[in-house]
């Protein structure tokens, strides 16, 4: 691919990340299935972390992951993010160690890491949708 095409995708994924990332943020706030739409609840006296009521409670998170819609949102967000981030890293590293073999190695190494992150993230989504491990 031409660099302009690669970078066009960089900008495109950036915007898509913004769109899907906003959903992500709404999910842990107003759209959460949790009855109390709050992230952290502390027990006043000894300030221990109470998990049960918050949006990050296991049950609600599990519920979100089991929904096809949210699952697809996450999967897409992950795809865009991985492209965006690892291409971003490639850009930074290619400016740090430009040219020659080093740059090729960096590109492929990053590709591998990106795949690992992508597979690992997709695994969470897919396995959740399939009903857990």
């Amino acid at each position, binding site marked *: 691919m031409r660099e302009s095409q690669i970078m066009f995708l960089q*900008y495109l994924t950036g915007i898509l990340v913004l769109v899907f990332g906003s959903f992500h943020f709404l999910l842990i706030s107003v759209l959460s299935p949790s009855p109390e739409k709050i992230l952290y609840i502390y027990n006043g006296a000894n300030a221990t972390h109470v998990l049960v009521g918050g949006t990050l409670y296991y049950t609600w998170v599990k519920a979100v992951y089991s929904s096809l819609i949210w699952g697809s949102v996450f999967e897409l967000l992950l795809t865009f993010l991985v492209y965006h981030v690892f291409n971003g890293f490639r850009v930074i590293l290619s400016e740090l160690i430009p040219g020659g073999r080093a740059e090729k190695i960096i590109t492929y190494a990053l590709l591998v890491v990106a795949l690992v992150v992508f597979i690992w993230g997709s695994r969470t989504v897919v396995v959740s949708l399939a009903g857990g491990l």
Partner: protein
Amino acid sequence: MTIENKKGWISWFNPFKYGTDRWMFALHRLTGIALGLYLIAHVWETSNILNGQVTWDKIMVDLDYPFGAHYGPFILSLILIVAVYHALNGIRLTIVENGLMLPKPYRPEFPYKAKSLRGLNNLLKIVLGIFMILISAIGVIFIFTGVIV
């Protein structure tokens, strides 16, 4: 015989003496790297949802309580602010780096203040800056209190 005199990567993060755009570049890169690393961590973190409630709960508490206090809301706020900066500046970059909202080629005149760094580009910075503050404020208040204004 000549020796190298490269300023090196350090100067990515040395925006002093130049204009706001240079500051924003430094911050964009910094936040980009930070967010990228956060993404990797986040992917690992969320994957634990598959490992059952005990693990999940433990991780939730550990991440909230790293060095002997509840830093969770602070860390999350920081990530939010960083993300908001990167995202909104990213929008600006998407626009201007593709040649939109910039002046037409013009006639340079003494004292040669570059128009590309001013004008609509500056307006974008201001507008997006206001949004950054607003969104960050809303987010941070929510993170700490659960209230969405």
